[in-house]
């Protein structure tokens, strides 16, 4: 018979092992991509897959020689941050209004906003392409910033709304009694309290923008093409390309992986934001 202490310890070990297993399964494709990026093309295609091989940097050298990585990386950064900033500027007031001044249509509005995510992107490719062309925005960062903002806004509003809903209204009322205006309420009271939640919304938006490929491949060609377009350019119809594709994918993922690693504390805090109550 286990004592309570032993039982808790066992539970902790089992849960820990489970968490590690899930984490390793999730990380395995990334690990394999990084590993493949150091293989030759023939090793990358080898069956059974090779764990022991002679590592090479030739794929990275090839990419450096052929592509201007920093041009694509800068486009990704500008588009992801541009879209996230505009998205947050719209999402915070929208979520504030829905969370603290709820009407009978708020729930329906939120559901309707989310339903726009169910539309397959390819269904609106032609109208958006023609609009972008008419506005002279083809192959510009601005077109992707606008589209990514519109794509991610429903999720951002939902997330911020959820965090705001967890904040007691009394706190805002107290600020109002002290003479705070609506803007002051948001900026001085609401935002500092919900910092963790907002950080995770920002991070999620950045990741979604960074990884988006459909619109970036269809609306850009060279000037505004982000890293997703660079990755696609390494797929070859005639010739082995897995190792080079893995190398360019590693380079494309690296900035956002590092960014996520650095801000993981904020992310975890945001995800456990309900504890404020």
């Amino acid at each position, binding site marked *: 018979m286990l004592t309570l202490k032993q039982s808790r310890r066992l539970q902790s070990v089992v849960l820990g092992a489970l968490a590690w297993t899930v984490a390793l399964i999730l990380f395995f494709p990334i690990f394999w991509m990084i590993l493949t990026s150091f293989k030759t093309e023939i090793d990358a*295609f080898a069956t059974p897959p090779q764990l022991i091989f002679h590592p090479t940097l030739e794929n990275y050298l090839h990419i450096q020689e052929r592509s201007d990585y920093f041009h694509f990386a800068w486009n990704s950064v500008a588009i992801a941050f541009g879209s996230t900033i505009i998205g947050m500027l719209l999402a915070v007031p929208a979520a504030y209004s829905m969370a603290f001044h709820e009407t009978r249509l708020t729930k329906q509005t939120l559901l309707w906003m989310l339903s726009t995510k169910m539309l397959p992107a390819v269904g609106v490719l032609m109208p958006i392409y023609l609009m972008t062309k008419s506005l002279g925005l083809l192959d510009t960062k601005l077109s992707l910033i606008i589209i990514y903002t519109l794509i991610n806004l429903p999720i951002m509003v939902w997330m911020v709304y959820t965090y705001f809903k967890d904040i007691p209204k009394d706190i805002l009322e107290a600020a109002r009694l002290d003479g705070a205006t609506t803007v002051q309420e948001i900026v001085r009271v609401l935002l500092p309290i919900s910092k963790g939640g907002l950080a995770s919304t920002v991070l999620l938006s950045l990741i979604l923008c960074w990884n988006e490929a459909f619109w970036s491949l*269809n609306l850009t060609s060279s000037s505004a093409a982000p890293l997703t*377009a660079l990755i696609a*350019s390494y797929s070859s*119809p*005639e010739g082995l390309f897995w190792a080079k594709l893995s190398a360019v994918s590693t380079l494309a993922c690296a900035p956002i992986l590092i960014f996520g690693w650095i801000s993981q504390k904020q992310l975890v805090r945001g995800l456990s934001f309900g504890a404020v109550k």
Partner: protein
Amino acid sequence: MNMLLKALFATAGICAVTYAQAATVTIATVNNSDMIRMQRLSKTFEEQHPDIKLKWVVLEENVLRQRLTTDIATQGGQFDVLTIGMYETGLWGAKGWLEPMKNLPADYDADDLFPSVREGLSVKGTLYALPFYAESSITYYRTDLFKGAGLTMPEQPTWEQLGEFAAKLHQPDKDQYGICLRGKAGWGENMALVGTMANAFGARWFDEKWQPEFTGPEWTKAASFYVDTMKKYGPPGASSNGFNENLALFNSGKCAMWVDASVAGSFTTDKSQSKVADHVGFAASPSQVTDNGSSWLYAWSLAIPSSSKNKEAAQSFATWATSKQYAKLVADKEGIANVPPGTRKSTYSDAYMQAAPFAKVSLSMLEKADPAHPSAKPVPYIGIQYVTIPEFQAIGTSVGKLFSAALTGQMPVEQALQAAQQSTAREMKRAGYPK
């Protein structure tokens, strides 16, 4: 001081004029080694043409097709030079979406182009794209395995012979498979191979009245041979194998034979990526009851969309990249074996034939290819491994999925052919073809 100001103004003026005159040519292409080499060597073109600046957009093949179709249909004007195949050239040229390649310089020597390639890129006698490299299909085989088994590959084998060789060389316990063929579904994937195989068996996509013929005896024989041979002597998971997967299998020594694009010749004999580089033999693409259409013809070509804002500069580049001078540049800088193959008769010099052991077979296939007569019977269409009608992409891919399903055993061959007949007939009727 005055002099200095004048000099500064003059320099600024020259810069302004140069800037104003500099045309930017945006080239959309795919990530094939020949195209990447062209990108690398294009600095020479820019040096020769300081008034033209080149911008490269490299895309995945299917994305490229989708992007170009969207851009060209909406007159988006995003690209000045397009890398397209014979199928698109025929369709887009007829619609007036491409600029005709007129007024080519005398030293371009258009008569040096292979007639089959030139005709494949022309609509009613007008050239709409300049061929960058062209390919046919040939048979690759392992000379060491053939020697070991006491077999001899004929110069022009038949599919039946390949089946017999495959049976003798198939040793799955040693990771050695008799024959590797495309199985991945798609009009440009398995249907390129199955289409040419069907041609060799005397089949055709449509009769003279545009009625599909999948339930005829020729298609039945070809499809049964393909599925049976692959099931018995092919590698496992063949239904997901395209060109690259089979190339990897062959290069790692797992295929005794492989029938695919002639462009693989340089990959299979390259020691840096092939474990069997010293043991590769080449033979003609297999025939069966006929030679007609038994080897495919495809040319990656450079075309100029009518929406281009820099047509003159674009033609200047397309002409340079497909010229004899470019071939010489490649030979000088990267070796004669790397000259883009299949487009010009002059490429096949003695030195080239010696450097590229697969060139002889590839050349004979290119010379034989006739897109106007792809089958033993008369056909109402142009194209060997495809049919130059807009509906073909959808039809080819749909039929390709059925062949893939037959290969995995999801349905018997007869059922796949019946379904192919029904879906193709329906699609053609909807498009108003049958007479």
